[in-house]
């Protein structure tokens, strides 16, 4: 058998990757986890997680991450910082190119997650960090007693808007449809909160301000009418896109660009698995990512044994 650096390389250190790391380490595989920033993924910016079993009182995202990392390292998982530039997944030895070095492995689990989508509105980039934000827990205190806007209608948009109401005077919640997609318990909380004013059937077309954000331009998609909202902040939660830029054409993706896998988390390339938000899953939660990670690591261990 060819010599390789690792049995298994896990790319991405969110809940899916860390769980895969726990399972692979307990299976005594020689495994490395690569994380481009810091372990944790999207849940680092989640203010409160109350639907992950085992924590009946709920806990902050970063608190849950710390426990995942502690558990993974207890079983000896090696975690390194590095961003994957490209990969060659075609042969039995997988080659993973980082900025300065290339590492080899028999199997790979891709758990790179997804990133918040941008609106694509005028001057959005100019005001990022100058009023436009995607992290309520980080930035809400800067908007104490201010009027802000939020965009989106899913779980994240509604939950984080509710968090914002602890700080701000008023929130305009802008949604392109005439009803929310968020889970019912969050809808009930939002509708009974008098700091939230809903702006239905509307999209954000642009931003303006002298130095920091001062105005958001909103268009009603039914009537075509545009209005201007005077706000100091705008929080954007309009969905996610998969972090797959480094993949090239090496794996089969679904129509939305997420990695296509079967029930064993096997991708179109033998020995390559995907788990969590980056794959074609119907639900993107910590609870589902953890399940994916466990399956992917077990499938990877079976694959390596069969070589």
């Amino acid at each position: 058998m060819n010599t390789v650096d690792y049995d298994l390389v896990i790319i991405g250190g969110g809940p899916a990757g860390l769980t895969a790391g726990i399972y692979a380490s307990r299976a005594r595989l020689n495994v490395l986890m690569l994380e481009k920033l810091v372990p944790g993924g999207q849940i680092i910016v989640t203010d409160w997680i109350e639907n992950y079993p085992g924590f009946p009182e709920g806990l902050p995202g970063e608190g849950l991450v710390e426990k995942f990392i502690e558990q993974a390292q207890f079983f000896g998982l090696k975690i390194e910082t590095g961003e994957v530039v490209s990969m060659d997944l075609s042969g039995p030895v997988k080659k993973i190119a980082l900025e300065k070095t290339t590492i080899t492995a028999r199997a790979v689990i891709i758990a790179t997650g997804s990133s918040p989508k941008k609106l694509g509105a005028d001057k959005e980039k100019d005001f990022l960090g100058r009023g436009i934000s995607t992290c309520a827990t980080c930035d809400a205190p800067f908007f104490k007693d201010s009027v802000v806007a939020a965009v989106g209608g899913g779980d994240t948009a509604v939950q984080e808007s509710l968090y914002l109401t602890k700080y701000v005077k008023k929130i305009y919640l802008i949604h392109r449809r005439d009803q929310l997609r968020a889970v019912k318990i969050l809808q009930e909380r939002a509708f009974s909160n008098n700091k939230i004013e809903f702006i239905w059937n509307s999209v954000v077309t642009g931003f303006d301000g002298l130095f920091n954000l001062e105005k958001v331009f909103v268009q009603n998609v039914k009537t075509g009418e545009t209005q201007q909202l005077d706000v100091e902040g705008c929080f954007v939660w309009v969905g996610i896109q998969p972090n797959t830029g480094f993949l090239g054409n090496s794996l089969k993706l679904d129509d939305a660009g997420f990695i296509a896998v079967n029930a064993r988390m096997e991708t179109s390339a033998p020995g390559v698995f995907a788990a969590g938000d980056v794959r074609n899953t119907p639900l993107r939660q910590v609870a589902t990512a953890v399940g994916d990670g466990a399956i992917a690591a077990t499938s990877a261990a079976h694959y390596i044994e069969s070589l």
Partner: protein
Amino acid sequence: MSNAKEVNDSNFEAEVLKSDKPVLVDFWAPWCGPCKAIAPAIDELAAEYGGQIKITKCNVDENSATPGKYGIKAIPTLLFFKGGDLVDQLRGLVAKNKIDESLKKLL
């Protein structure tokens, strides 16, 4: 103990604007997950650049004048100063090598 020196509203001018070395200021707060996540990288860079660049942190919970002056509306925000002038900035959670690139440009 962090390698990065704490700066505040009262010593910002002396420690940052009148520093004879280039300065990085990491604006952070205890309640910010990404700020905690970026902290180890800032500490490592403080050790690596020790003599050449002053690496500092400013707690926006305890200081409001300085973050207000620089229009900070999101954290973590990293501001890079040279000769008292703001010459570069990074907003949000960024990788250590990106911070390193910005620091190299200060030398």
